[in-house]
């Protein structure tokens, strides 16, 4: 199955504080390359927790995670960091930019880390990404001078800078008005359909979820509907 972007086998995770309770129970999920998947469910059903497991940041789980056919489970912290840097773009629930840096630098940093392009090329690419979200004129402003919505768009631009195979979003449009939500959604759709990038978003926004390719529903730490059409 070469066109599988991400696959989980029996992922189970517990929270230990204050008492041990299972938050994820035997999650078996497959996401194809170029698919645009929304994960929905009530607050506390474990959808964000699942996303952090999928992002490789959370290593405290049982089961197996494969990304692009490579087993991520059990890999060293450094190689997971390298996987995240190159193949995963993450958009957080809150914007989370580095406030001391300009927007442009914020977008550039993951690419400078990757080192695939020269700093000049990275800068040009960063401008391009900012332009897609209509924030290019803010490029040289410090990140902490921006409004929430502007920061969120810069953060999405940052997630895209390395053309990651998988883009993950935890409420990526949570801070955006309907117009900008529309822009972001159209762009996500374009990324998945035209460029073959895989998108996995956790969202409360029903409209946003409905328009994606596939809705995975979760309840009480289990997938209740895989949403295959």
């Amino acid at each position, binding site marked *: 199955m070469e066109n599988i972007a991400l696959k989980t086998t029996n992922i189970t995770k517990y929270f230990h504080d204050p008492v041990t309770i299972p938050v994820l129970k035997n999650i078996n999920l497959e996401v194809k390359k170029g698919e645009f998947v929304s994960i929905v469910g009530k607050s506390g059903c474990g959808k*964000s927790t699942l996303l*952090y497991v999928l*992002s490789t*940041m*959370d290593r405290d789980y049982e089961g197996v995670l494969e990304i692009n056919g490579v087993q991520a489970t059990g890999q060293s*912290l*450094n190689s997971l*960091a*390298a*996987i*995240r*840097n*190159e193949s*995963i773009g*993450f958009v*957080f629930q809150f914007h*989370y*930019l*580095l*406030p*001391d*840096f300009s927007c442009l*630098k914020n977008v550039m*940093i*993951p690419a*400078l*880390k*990757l080192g695939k392009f020269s*700093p000049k090329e990275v800068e040009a690419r960063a401008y391009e990404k900012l332009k897609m979200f209509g924030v290019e004129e803010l490029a040289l402003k410090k990140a902490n001078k921006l409004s929430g919505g502007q920061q969120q768009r810069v953060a999405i631009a*940052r997630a895209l800078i390395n053309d990651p195979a998988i883009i993950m979003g935890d409420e990526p449009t949570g801070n955006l008005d309907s117009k900008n939500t529309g822009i972001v959604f159209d762009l996500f759709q374009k990324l998945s359909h035209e460029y073959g990038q895989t998108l996995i978003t956790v969202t409360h926004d029903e409209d946003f979820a409905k328009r994606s390719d596939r809705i995975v529903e979760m309840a009480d730490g289990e997938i209740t509907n895989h949403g295959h059409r």
Partner: protein
Amino acid sequence: MKISVNTEIALTYLSSRKKQTVVAAMGVMFGISMFIFMQSLMKGTNDYFEKSSFSTTAHIRLYSENKVADAHMLNSYLKDNSTKILTNPKQLQQSLGLTNPYGIIQNIRKNPQVVAVTPQVTTNVIYASGSVNINGTVAGVNIDEEDKMFDVQGNMKEGDLHDLNRVNNGLLIGKGIADKLSLHVGDNITVRAGSGSPMIMRVIGIYATTIKQIDETKSYANIVQAQNLLGKDRSYVTDIKINLADYNNAPKVARDMETITGYKAEDWVQSNEQLKAAFKIRAIILNSVIGVILLVAGFGIYNILNMTIYEKIKEIAILKATGFPGNSVISIFLQQAVYIGLMGGVIGVIVGFLITFMVSKIYIGAGTLKYLPMSFYIPHYIEAVCFGILTTIAAGFFPARKASKVDPVTIIRG
């Protein structure tokens, strides 16, 4: 110039908190400048005392010492295997002169560590001028060699020391003698050695060392004059003075010479034990003070970086989420420490030099010591920078390692 992204982030963090950075750098600067100042003062003081000690003491002095009587003669007379015991053995008077001194000198010169050797005739004398007599010693020397070893020239107050070679019966006296007998250059002085007849000599110069006791007793004469004074021949030599390339080797070389020549070889450590002890005590005081200063500076950096990490914990999580591995995070924070250290180091070297320079101009006026002895010794500055940077790295490492262990999930999810 291509700088890595880690460096760029480190520099941005430093420049976005200028005040904290400057305060931390000041701490290092203070530590390093104090380090330089204290080291300069200690080396200056040690050099001063060493110099004043070596201005009168050779690294090694070879002389004939009286020996305790032993059974050697008895053995060679009786030639049997019995054990002889001398009850109440006495010191045997040895000839004060060395046997074949110029042969010994030639032998000593063969040692590659030896840089200067000079024979000397030392004798106790009574100086007389008018009705006043005072005790003292005359050192009969080759004044050129003596000057090379002990910098006699540097102690000259009046007259020309080379007159010892030119003026018949010339005598170079200490300032104390000159004062007690109210003598000036060109005056006559009567000198009587224990076994010889009195001799009238002419004061050709007056010197002053830092040691009063020497200035009040010792005078220099040409070695031939000293031999004449004692009524001895030209091969009469009481001491051989030896200087080495490295005076720290003196004790070992002295022991070797004792074995070779059979005479007593006294090294400068034996004759200046209190000096050696003072060096050691000063070094301990100094090193503990410097240690405390650097420790305090190190804690300053540690604190500031620790605070930064608490402040930036979300950003560290972001960096890790976007693919910065732990060692990149260590590099980012350790670099901040190193730049603080470098900044403090450079300023500290300049400030340290200025303090040292200013203090070296403070008038003390104790005895012959006019100004505080300070040394300007380049290795101190290099050491200071190295220690400063080592301290900052040590102080930065623990916060940096803590930063690298930040778990992005707990921070981002809150």
